[in-house]
């Protein structure tokens, strides 16, 4: 990491700690902020947070490794989480899983080479009456079919990169 980049991160985390009152209870909100913004929580970040909250970095790591929505490995810009719990299973989540793997070209637990998508399992999304359900970041999709998987992925792609530029141009024109 560049020195300037580190300094910027240090400053950001310090402000964040102040905002949450520098108590141990600030740990999760801080980690959630970092996870949201950088798609992972690096060892360096954990060290800085530990220093700010005056706890051992191992404590921070133990929390990061405990929760499914936090992690130290970089996730994609879009984290696709397919519900694998019983109601969605009855509704046919296996086919959706296969189609997601095919369309993204990665197995569950991995991130695409371009850093765009991460494919994960989720435990019960609370959409049991409308399964199969999946989350893309904070967005929820219900009644997903194998055909719909492609549309969902394209919708995400359209939000970023060249696609987004093209879309903007189209809107302007």
């Amino acid at each position, binding site marked *: 990491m560049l020195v300037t980049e580190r300094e910027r991160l240090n400053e950001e985390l310090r402000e964040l700690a102040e905002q949450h009152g520098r108590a141990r209870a600030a740990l999760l909100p801080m980690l959630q902020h970092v996870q949201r913004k950088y798609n992972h929580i690096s060892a360096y970040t954990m060290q800085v947070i530990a220093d700010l909250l005056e706890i051992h970095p191992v404590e921070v790591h133990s929390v990061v490794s405990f929760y499914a*929505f936090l992690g130290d490995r970089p996730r994609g810009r879009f984290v696709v989480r397919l519900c694998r719990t019983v109601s969605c*299973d009855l509704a046919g989540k296996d086919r959706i899983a296969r189609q997601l793997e095919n369309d993204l070209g990665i197995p569950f637990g991995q991130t695409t080479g371009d850093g765009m998508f991460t494919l994960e399992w989720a435990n*019960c999304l*609370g959409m049991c009456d409308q399964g199969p359900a999946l989350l893309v970041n904070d967005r929820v999709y219900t009644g997903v079919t194998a055909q719909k998987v492609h549309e969902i992925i394209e919708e995400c792609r359209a939000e970023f990169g060249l696609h987004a530029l093209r879309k903007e141009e189209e809107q302007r024109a």
Partner: protein
Amino acid sequence: MKAAHEGPLTFAQIKPNEGLRAALEKKRPDVVAEISRSGLRGRGGAGFPTGVKWNLAGAATGEHKYIVCNADEGEPGTFKDRVILSQYADLVFEGMTIAGYVVGAATGIVYLRAEYTYLLPHLESVLAQRREHGLLGHNILEKGFDFDIEIRLGAGAYVCGEETALIESLEGHRGEPRNRPPFPVDTGFVRRPTVVNNVETLAWAACILARGADWFRGFGTEKSTGLKLFSVSGDCERPGVYEFPMGIPISELLEEVGGRDAKAVQIGGASGHCVPRCEFHRTIAFEDVATGGSVIVFGPQRDMLKVARNFLEFFTEESCGQCTPCRDGNPKLLEGVRLLEQGRCSMRYLRDLIALGETMQVASKCGLGQSSPNAFLSIVEHFPQEIMGRTPQTV
């Protein structure tokens, strides 16, 4: 959302803030008495009497007390809290405010599961509105009572639905359940007296204050009073959220949701029990088949062993790993189910697995571990003809 026996849902009929106004007119002990008399019990599944909980927290000494709303709805097959939060959030916040008034707390915290992050903007806007209308913040309804609510997000851990694990998580730790006692009512969030109530419990508390304890007691059974929301999913014609009185027979519920030909029903989610067709006369109540509201219907074509495997995969993943029976027991049971699926499990080994499950029920530290073998044990008990001597499935 559908109410039982037609007509709109109770939550939709209650006038906004009627319960809160009624509560603030009363003395604190009278509010607790009203809740106690109604017989309201925790709607998250454990069924602890709400009046007793509020009373204990009210009696606990401490300058700062907390009201925590448990919106970490993670039980497989449960989604009623999501519906309540998206349609009747006011009622929940009202319930929290009443609890705050009774217990003497100034701060409420909603612990919202990370999977429901999309509800956050809506909930924040409801809170802002309540502050604007003098229903939250300083001097509520000019009665000299201060209370405010903040929302904290979870980070994807089923075990945080357990109240002490939830408190650990709020404090910035791993969601590992604590030893009880001490109970949260005297040593909770940051070691202060804390009431942890389920979303639905708080909403009903507000309704009870609005309509009176006698109205609530008019529904349900002696030990399980009142109405309850049920999340119905699986092989039925009309899945969704339903309102039924407690003590409803399973067969009647199935009739309502269009699941007449079901061969089994999972009541209470992954940690609940699998009830076979021959026991459909049983009732859903704390004294019979208890539930937090999850009803999963299995049609005649379903492979119950696969269901058991799904539940055990769930617990293997979601065990916090703190105590041995749960951490090591669940993978062992899962391995056993795989042997059964391959048709390579002896009767003697199956008996060992059942004994292991029973050990987990008594030796695990928290509710998650204690109830994790329930589904497996009830499926093995009720469907022996389905699980023994299988020929391996080639996939």
